[in-house]
């Protein structure tokens, strides 16, 4: 059902205005290669540092579904990071104890 304008909408406008200033729009989206390396970095990081799997398992786990075997994966057990590089895009996810992994923005 497509959206129709009505009293509920008017009420929403009032509620919206009452809630104060509007938040900022979302961050600029990633391109397809940034998505690809973002996927590999994040999945690889959680696999290694949260699940405790081996580097070999996690590298394959992160890369295999993409079909790109030439994605470079760097696992740093000192910095607790996994970095994926492919076609000019590099993304890094960082593990924090008790929190898990977070993928860095662009």
């Amino acid at each position, binding site marked *: *059902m*497509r*959206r*129709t304008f009505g009293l*509920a*909408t008017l*009420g*929403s*406008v009032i*509620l*919206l205005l009452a*809630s*104060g*200033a*509007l*938040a*900022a*729009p*979302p*961050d*600029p*989206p*990633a*391109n*397809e290669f*940034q*998505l*690809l390396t*973002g*996927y590999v970095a*994040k*999945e690889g990081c*959680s*696999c290694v540092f*949260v*699940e*405790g*799997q*081996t580097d070999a*398992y996690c590298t*394959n*786990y992160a890369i*295999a*579904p*993409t*079909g*790109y*075997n030439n994605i470079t994966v760097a696992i740093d057990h000192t910095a607790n990071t996994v970095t994926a590089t492919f076609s000019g895009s590099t993304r890094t996810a960082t593990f924090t104890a*008790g*929190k*898990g*992994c*977070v*993928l*860095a*923005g*662009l």
Partner: protein
Amino acid sequence: MKQPSIPLTLLLALAGTAACSKSNDTTSSANDAGPKSTDAGVNDAGVSYDWTALDAEEFAGSWVTEGLVVMVGGQVVHEKYGTGWTATMPHILYSASKSIGSALVGIAINDGLMQTSDSICKYVTPPDGGSDATLCDTTIADLLHMSSGIQWNEAYTNGDPTAENDLELLYGNQADMGAYTASQPRAWDSGTTFDYSSGDADLLADAFKAALKAQDAIAYAQAKLFGPAGMSVLCEEDRSGTVIFSTDCFTTPRDFAKFGQLFLDNGMVGSTQVVPASWVTYSITPAPSVAAPTSRIDDAGPGPGGSYGAQWWLNSTSPTATPDTWEYPHEPVDGYNAEGHYGQKLIVIPSRNMVIARTGADLATTYDPDAMIGAAVAAVDKATGKGAQ
């Protein structure tokens, strides 16, 4: 596609071919021999189970099963792990995490912190340029029911990964996943249309965080749910510090099963009401948009779709729904499921008093649990002499 939260179908399209080289080594490792756990298949009451068919389905075929736990009557009666996995290793749950997020919301509602009827604008300030003022028509219930009306593409159908909202949500450039969701345009009136959306789950997480005010969400979850339930769970956060309800919780298969047992026991652990019994009922009651017996969810994944409650998949819309409308034909009609990408499954079957927790890494082929469920139910029915649907 159901439980997709993770993108790879599209990335496969991008790549042109899937190159999954992970083998399904079926050698199971020893479990950690915890209490009441046995692969011999005999429980404390002396009931003997034959898991031959179940293990053959999960560990001798093409599925990549990494953990399997069966509980009957609150007792672990079968437990087996794939090569490289043990009972103490946490496993990602992907979209099965949504059911945990729902339980946390139910607890927060019971604590008087929020209500299902609340507009999300009570908790979340709409982003500039977002889904217009009508965003405030969306309620907490709408988010729980995947019926926000916010436009969302999680179907992996057009071959363009940048068009997939859940890819951008999880692996793109969004610091606040809920805010990203709220920024999308509107497709339907709130509450009218089921549209599976990891964004709805993460917008719910934003509302949950705001409802807690000064309380830390992870600490709240530990104190109210994970601790009392005896579960060790880690749920990751986005860059804004909001717990990701949609996909990123990790736990062991045994604790995954405990979560199912918690719901099977109407939210009780011993004499403690951890999740309100009313929330358990609410969770497994079909959402209004998918409640009609003939309104099974159109689902490209295995199984016809069944129905959907509050972040739980339901095997059917009602006890009298015909099997052709069920999600999984070999699952008893009253079953309900937490399900995640790559084969994460938590199967709860009240009529058999049983729970199945399955973790896996079926990267190349979409895992279909129907035969696994059938084999497990058959083993229980044979051992207990039961079998009524």
